[in-house]
């Protein structure tokens, strides 16, 4: 399952990125990123704050230009053919937003007109998308009165006006409560069903798992892993079994024993001394049962045992051996702020 091929404009790729570099002073927002998104798939770009995800989306939307490297979207070069490129993309981002002072309908109508739809078509498209995203009731109200979930749905509708071939979702659910997040996920899944290619950035493994078919993990402007989501999940441990022995002194021996037995997932068992737990990656129910069996056979008393999806932190731990970099210390969370003149 090789994602990186040598042909920079490879067929069937909606997005191709080669050696993309963007520095803000000392900060390497992007430090040689390669990425391919096949047509009709959802590529998840997973990484902590400051990993360069938003910078990548901003370059691919022609909002900023890269310092080096090249990128094409639907065959159009981000630097040389920005205008054609803008016709085929949709952008829903942390920053790209609707006009809060305008009613939902007016926002969509305006974007329709800016995309050269006739008055009639722009009206019809606005009605249609409001209906589809369940916003018809709120069509005439200013967007500032919308709830968080309604705002995101309006954002999604706005990015769909031009029937984009490639859609960027830049952290679409950051800051939403779990129920609203599920709502947005359902909408995104429906959009993917229509055949649009999606580039999704997220900080949450769970979101990537829900929406993406392929995943690129980025950290400090570099790609640290990429592949099919199942493959990566396997590499980091499809699930994580969190085992807490009653006696913390048993943590180390237990980890060694499990690694020796070789019954866990691809990544090795990790000791989390802070919480006094053992993180055991498991790929299957059989492995899970085997781990529990081995622990019991050893006669070690455990106070709790839970399974969870690997968090972003655990993904990083497994892939890089270090935790996701603390963005506040090393990289500004919002690189844009840093460069504003």
């Amino acid at each position, binding site marked *: 399952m090789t994602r990186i091929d040598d042909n920079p404009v490879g067929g069937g790729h909606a997005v191709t990125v080669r050696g993309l570099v963007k520095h803000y002073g000392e900060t390497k927002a992007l430090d040689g990123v390669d990425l391919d998104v096949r047509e009709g798939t959802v590529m998840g770009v997973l990484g902590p704050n400051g990993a360069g995800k938003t910078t990548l989306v901003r370059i691919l939307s022609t909002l900023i230009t890269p310092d080096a490297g090249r990128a094409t979207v639907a065959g159009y070069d981000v630097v040389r053919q920005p205008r*054609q490129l*803008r016709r*085929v993309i949709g952008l829903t981002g942390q920053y790209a937003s609707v006009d809060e*002072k305008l009613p939902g309908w007016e926002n969509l109508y305006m974007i329709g007109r*800016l*995309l050269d739809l006739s008055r009639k078509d722009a009206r019809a498209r606005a009605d249609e998308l409001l209906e589809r995203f369940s916003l018809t009731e709120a069509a005439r109200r200013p967007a500032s009165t919308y709830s968080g979930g309604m705002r995101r749905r309006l954002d999604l509708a706005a990015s769909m006006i031009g029937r984009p071939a490639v859609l960027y979702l830049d952290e679409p659910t950051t800051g939403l409560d779990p129920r609203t997040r599920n709502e947005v996920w359902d909408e995104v899944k429906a959009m993917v069903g229509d*055949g649009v290619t999606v580039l999704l950035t997220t900080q949450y493994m769970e979101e990537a798992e829900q929406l993406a078919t392929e995943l690129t993990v980025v950290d400090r402007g570099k790609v640290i892993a990429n592949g099919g989501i199942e493959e990566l999940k396997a590499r980091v441990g499809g699930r994580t079994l969190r085992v807490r022995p009653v006696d913390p002194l048993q943590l180390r021996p237990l980890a060694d024993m499990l690694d020796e037995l070789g019954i866990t997932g691809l990544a090795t068992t990790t000791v989390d001394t802070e919480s006094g737990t053992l993180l055991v990656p498991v790929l299957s129910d059989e492995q899970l049962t085997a781990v529990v069996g081995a622990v019991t056979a050893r006669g070690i008393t455990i106070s709790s045992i839970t399974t969870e999806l690997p968090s972003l932190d655990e993904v990083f731990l497994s892939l890089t051996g270090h935790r996701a970099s603390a963005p506040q210390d090393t990289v500004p969370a919002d690189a844009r702020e840093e460069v504003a003149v």
Partner: protein
Amino acid sequence: MSATTVTSAVTSADTRIPLRGHLRHTGALLRRNLLWIRQDPESMFDALLMPVIFTLLFVYVFGGSIGKALGGGQQAYVQYVVPGLMAMTSLSMAQGVGTGFNQDFNSGVMDRFRSLPIGRGSVLFAKIAVELARMLIATAVLMVVGVLVGFDITHWAGLFAAVGLATLFASSIMWVFLTLGVIMKNAQSVQAMGFLTLFPLQFGSSIFAPTNSMPGWLRHFTDYNPMSGLADAARGLMNGGPVAHGLWVTLAWSVGITAVMAPIAIHKFRTKS
């Protein structure tokens, strides 16, 4: 909803936007700015109230004493200050353009616009057009209040010429404020910078009082201050009297500012990250 429909909108290798496209885009953005006013009528308060308050203040507070110096009374001052206030209004209203523009950047709306296949100029022109409309409304209010306090328009054609000159100057100075709106971090700083440029230009001019009693060094400034030029030209055009110097000063500044600042504003807008 298929992904293929979109390619039909792509005009092959031709990336130029036809004039009709520019007009359509500017129209859509104009509509947006007008809807803002409907959504938030209070945003018109400055345009409607400022001319009233300034006219009443200057006429009734300073009118008596400056009018005496002019060789008349309060009425002489009305005749003097109303064209001056027209110049003041054009600059004050032009200044607002930067604040709104800056807010668009900070709210993320501008990112949406910049990721759409529209000419970057459309966004700027729509903003300028709406602010000019606000300026013209403020000017209309000023003239009504002016006439109510006794302003006498001798030449009606001159009135329209004066308004045209004020509009020209406002549209040129707006490029300066648009540039500030693009490069400054927040709306408050844009407003602060705006006022810093506003006050010396407005008060160091012939808007409120004749310049002949000012010290020589200051008169070098006031004589070539576009605010003096605009005020003097407006006086001459509406009431008769010398027009040429004021007219040339205003025209020279308007053309000069536009020639320098419009490309800078557009460049800053294009390259803003």
